[in-house]
């Protein structure tokens, strides 16, 4: 009897949580490879994810070109080319003290780095200056990348009022306040 009661209570609680977890969606112009994320929520912290995404260097390019991760994430940097590469970033969102150089490693090897600071990381290779990649480090787990048409959808966002930031390479980031009550909608038109 007690077990049944607890199970029922859990189901009700789960339904209640699901009901309060909404989405934020919209479009970003320009479209592809834009990032949208919920900015820092005062008084709220999130556990670092255990997944370690891979930023590859292949064919003299960073792949993916843009990656968005939650702060505290460890990114694996892989060299898939038969030439030597390097990864460094001169700053994170302009803060040069956070610049870092990962050095050199051979084909097939990975080198991890944990991003503990929020901001935009401009990845460069000091032997192939044309190579560029970006890691956007978000303070929240609520983020998304746009598809080819510029559409995005951030899921599992609790109801509330948030500052939502849109970012695109070479554009000025744009912040909008969004009320999420089941769903929230925000379209962005970024400019240089």
């Amino acid at each position, binding site marked *: 009897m007690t077990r049944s009661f607890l199970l029922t209570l859990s189901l009700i609680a789960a339904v209640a949580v699901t009901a309060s977890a909404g989405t934020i969606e919209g479009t970003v112009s320009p479209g592809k490879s834009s990032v949208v994320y919920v900015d820092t929520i005062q008084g709220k912290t999130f556990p670092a994810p255990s997944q370690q995404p891979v930023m590859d260097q292949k064919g003299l390019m960073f792949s993916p070109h843009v990656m968005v991760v939650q702060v505290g994430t460890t990114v694996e940097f892989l060299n898939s080319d*038969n030439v*030597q*590469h390097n990864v460094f970033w001169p700053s994170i969102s302009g803060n040069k003290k956070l610049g870092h150089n990962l*050095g050199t490693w051979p084909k097939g090897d990975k080198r991890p780095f944990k991003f503990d600071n929020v901001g935009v990381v401009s990845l460069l290779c000091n032997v*192939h*200056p044309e190579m560029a990649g970006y890691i956007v480090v978000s303070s929240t787990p609520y983020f998304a990348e746009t598809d080819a048409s510029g559409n995005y959808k951030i899921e599992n966002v609790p109801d509330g009022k948030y500052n939502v930031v849109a970012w695109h390479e070479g554009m000025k980031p744009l912040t909008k306040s969004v009320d999420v009550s089941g769903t929230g909608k925000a379209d962005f038109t970024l400019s240089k």
Partner: protein
Amino acid sequence: MRGLSFRASKGFLPLLVLILLIVSSRQSLAIPAFSRLYGTSCSTCHIDFPKLNDFGKAFKDAGFKFPKDDESMLKIPPVMLGAPANAELWPKAIWPGTIPGIPPIGLRMNNYFQYTGTSSGKFAALTPAGTLPPFVPTTDFETGFFSIFTAGNFGSDIAFWVDDDISVSGANAVGELGDGYLRFVNIGRLIKLPKNSLNFRVGQFELELPFTQARSIWISPYDIYTQANIGAMNSLVPLQQFVNNDFQMADVGKGVEFSGGLHTGGYNYSIAIIDQNTGPIGQDQNPGSPYIPQATGSNNGGVGVASNADFKDIYASFNYRFNLEHDKESREAIQAAGPTGPRDHTYLNFGTYYFYGRSVQRLLGATVDNTSSLVTAREPFYRVGGNMTFNYRCCLQFNALYMFGHDMNLLPIDSTGALIPLQNLSSAVPVGFIRSTPATFSGGFVDAEWLAYPWMYVMIRYDGVNSTADRINGLQTNPSFTGAPFNGPFSSTRNRITPGVQFLIHANIKASFEYQFRPSQTVVIATNPVTGLPMAFNPFHTNTAVAGLEWVY
């Protein structure tokens, strides 16, 4: 004699010669087409274009392609000249091959500004009475090259390169082909030789010099590479030499080359067999001769002949490079793995080179029985020397090269066996030659090149060329002085210190500045009243500042 008059004419416009030396120092450049094909920056292969970094050397060694996984690096895939399945029909052939996906063409343009100090009016004393002295402007704008170049790989390790100066100094009439060759990479595999031990090149190419002049970052040419060996010809100086060898190490050669090894570590060698053409005017300047068979003067070019003798000159070089990285894996890689990224190796390179040729001079003479005959002086010559480079990582390099030049000196004799004074050669009848004191010179250069920033190169170089013949030819012993006046009057000749700095405005736009300090010189020799020896009167320096702006695209 044609040769004598040619030498005489060379002395009258010394600064023009200087300018020509500066702007005619052939500098084949990086290939922007590679940037397009691979979607990569110039700095992938160049430190400061056209100077290659270690990866660029490996790229060139491999036949203008990435040493590994070239296909996966190409952003513009090559065009197949036949389905790959054709290769199954003839598995040991390399037919049908590929061509680059876009025409691999690059263009280059440069401009110069030159400031020449002190010399204005100084050479007036050299001109005979009644003739206008040369005027040398202190400042001068000068256009350099407008060049087109193309290079790439046809697949199956067959590489090609062509560069041609469409115009030089704004005049398209003097443009010329630089290098134009096919290079068969690693053909040693066909006879089971170790990898990279044998390549074959055919066409026209700069010799595999220890330090390339054609792809040097210096505006100022290496003086030793432009040293011809003209024997002592000053008729008022007793020692006379019948040596008229216009060969310069910087000259391109037409022929074939066998080479091997790598330029990124270990040994490399080159053995080239090229046409001989050491005269002031090559036979190729005389097309349309009725004595040239049609097979040579074909409808696909090749009009005339390029040699002035049957002999083929031989060039050989050998280098060994010691990479000094501690870590073995890094030491043997194309680039070293530095803590902040891959970079050039720290290395020490030693090399030696040798050139053997025969200079030919033909005179209208007679046999001993007084029958009119062509008499030919075949004067073997050689150039030999060594070179050294110490390179510290990306940024600092010291280079040194030494060369010794030696030409056999055959003096014409008449039917009595007596020497014919060279100033009387046009009126005498030579029947043969006897060997005399050889004409020699020596010299070289040392330089230091420092990459202060990825966009800024700081350099300094010392050039020295010591030629007794040049000094004698340059002595003012009569009013019709005909020598090159940039020689030191009493000691060695053509010494120069040249500091320079270069800025990469863009990866493909470069501003260069060099200042050439020359030794004290004079055009007037007086007699020291105390010692009775000749002394320089009113000596001066002719220093030159050159600013260059060049771009490739």
